[in-house]
């Protein structure tokens, strides 16, 4: 059981770190601002979400796990709102502004 939980942690945290890498590469390599914004949201949702999922077995107690999940939910909610607002600014300024 313990080994299975450790394997879940290693797998999920590695996958989360992979999504962080993918988001950063997208931010650096994608051609226009809206595509870069699209790469950024993957980091907010999947990258942080998988890392939190991997950490859940090790926080000790349901209250700590709930706190970890609520950190992820806060980042996800604020990320969704902020990307909408930034996309609004990008669209008003035109493709190259």
């Amino acid at each position, binding site marked *: 059981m313990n080994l299975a939980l450790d394997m879940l942690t290693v797998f999920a945290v590695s996958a989360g770190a992979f999504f962080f890498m993918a988001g*950063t590469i997208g931010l650096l390599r994608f051609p226009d601002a809206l595509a*870069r914004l699209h790469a950024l949201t993957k980091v907010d949702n999947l990258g942080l979400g998988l*890392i939190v999922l991997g950490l859940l077995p090790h926080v000790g107690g349901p209250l700590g796990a709930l706190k970890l999940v609520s*950190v992820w939910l806060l*980042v996800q909610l*604020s*990320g969704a709102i*902020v990307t909408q*607002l930034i996309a609004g600014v990008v669209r*008003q300024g035109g493709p190259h502004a």
Partner: protein
Amino acid sequence: MANFLFSAAAFVLAIVALGLLRILHGPAEADRMMAAQLVGTGGVAVLLLMAVATETPSIVDVALMLGLLAAFASVAFVKGASGSEMETPEASDLR
């Protein structure tokens, strides 16, 4: 397990630092703000990994605060970028 979590934190930190290159050569202000948003999310991830690796639960509070401040920074940017000569994006969406 702590060693793995530490190395994962170091990896995420290095990746996020690489993302700062986008701040260096923009081209637009919004692109720079996206990199700052990435640093906010990456910082939260690193802090959560450190909290579990060092078994210090109070670091989770720091991560919570960083997530909150990153959101406020981006909202302040949007207000500043669309405040003076243009109307705010949310107002133009309503038309």
